[in-house]
């Protein structure tokens, strides 16, 4: 599902100055490209990408677990790479393509509501209990496969170690990744 809200603008003029001008500490207009749509938020430069997504854009898929880079619940993609939204400042993402779990299924809005193969396999393999870590696990899992590190269980373990699951659904998460890896 691609989220397009009435606040979504695509017009020019509000884009940031290319020149190196100081902005903040008061709220400034920041343009973010999220799941294929251009969005504008008024935020202080200290606001993390996670804060902007959750609190400004109501994209609450990425979760705030530790807010200090240790749990992986906030994992999203910036320019196709899995990163931690809690340690990324939103303002640094201007001009980058951000993908959250909300945009994973059909970033172009053409999938008739079909889930991404990794999402399907997470459901099929019961790869969660409380579900809090799951959006981060899924975004990270697709990254893990695309990076070529889902060869066997040992490799998946190592390359998914940045995503903690408090419910310890790890065996099922790995099973889901193994099942999805050829379709990602």
């Amino acid at each position, binding site marked *: 599902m691609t989220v397009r809200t009435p606040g979504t603008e695509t017009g020019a003029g509000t884009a940031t100055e*290319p*020149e*190196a*001008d*100081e*902005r*903040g*500490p008061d709220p*400034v207009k920041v343009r973010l490209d999220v799941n294929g749509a251009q969005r504008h938020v008024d935020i*202080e*430069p*200290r606001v*993390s990408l996670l804060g902007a997504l959750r609190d400004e854009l109501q994209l609450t898929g990425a979760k705030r677990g530790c*807010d*200090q*880079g240790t749990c*992986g619940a906030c*994992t999203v993609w910036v320019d196709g*790479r*899995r*990163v*931690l939204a809690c*340690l*990324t*400042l939103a*303002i*640094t993402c201007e001009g980058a393509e951000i993908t959250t779990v909300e945009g994973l299924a059909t970033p172009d809005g053409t999938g008739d509501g079909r889930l991404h193969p990794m999402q399907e396999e997470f459901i099929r393999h019961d790869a969660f209990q409380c579900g809090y870590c799951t959006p981060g696990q899924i975004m*990270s899992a697709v*990254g*893990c496969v695309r*990076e070529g*590190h889902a060869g066997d269980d040992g490799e998946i*373990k*190592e*390359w*998914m*170690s*940045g*995503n903690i699951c408090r419910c310890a659904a790890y065996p099922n998460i790995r099973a889901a990744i193994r099942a999805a890896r050829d379709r990602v």
Partner: protein
Amino acid sequence: MRPISYLRAEGADGIDSALRAVTDDPGSDFLAGGTTEVDLLRQHVLGPRRLVDINRLPLAGIEELPDGGLRIGALTRMSDVASSPVVQERFPMVSRALVLGASAQLRHMASMGGNMMQKVRCGYYRDAESPCNKREPGAGCAALTGVSRTHAVLGTSEHCIATHPSDVAVPLAALDARIRTRTLDGEHTYAFDDFFLEPGDTPHREHPLTHGELITAIEVPALPMARRSLYLKVRDRESYEFALVSVAAAIEVRDGKVGGVRIALGGVGTRPWRARRAEDALVGGPATTKSFDLAARAELAAARTTPMNAFKPELARRTLVRALETLTRDGSRS
């Protein structure tokens, strides 16, 4: 998190404008991957008023040097260095140390320059409250009488015993890497040994850099024997954890004798610890477990422990011996 303002350095004179912005303002810090800077800003450990974003400066990439070495741009991400075929081929211990550090997500974010500048993981430094000479010169050191299991045993002082946390700095120390920087006055080069300061009486000074000095690259000189080097990391959990002890090593054996050897230790020193005593003890002698053991003991003789980290010298000795045994046992061209 305190409010901050933001300035993005980019364009033709981006490097100069970044240098000027930070040099002229004691309240400005460079921002690279942010995995240390944003974390510690949020914990109230660092308090810049402004971040100067250097991520769009043309300082990423790996170049081959004429001598067979490599020049790694300061903004090259840990993951890109780790997966670079030329790094894997010439300096496998560098690639291995990177892969064994942090997590896949953090490695996509973290830059090599930022890695050199990362802050210690001492809990008292990071809680922004306890007495800590590094955070607040003269305040005292809570770790001396506190929880010190992960703290250093080499290069410590009565003012600070925090371990240098970087993994990749360990093989880079073994390889005699050089740190290239720029200031408004021009370019500078630091030998790796000169770049990391022991705490001594001034634990808040960790590097010789002036405020606003920008790391532009890390140069790794050629070292043929490093093609068979390794990085061995021992920690409390198997992944996503800092080292209790780590060893980066390369060794060349000719006719059963050690022709050349490079060793550095992580997890035990207040700086990435080049094990020169061990190297000196080994060169010219037999490549046997006995001499590896003696060399490790020579290096660790100076260790000063606390009741909580007294296990480290022995763990370091065993790890070092195992690293050298592994390198000399299989596939050695002896």
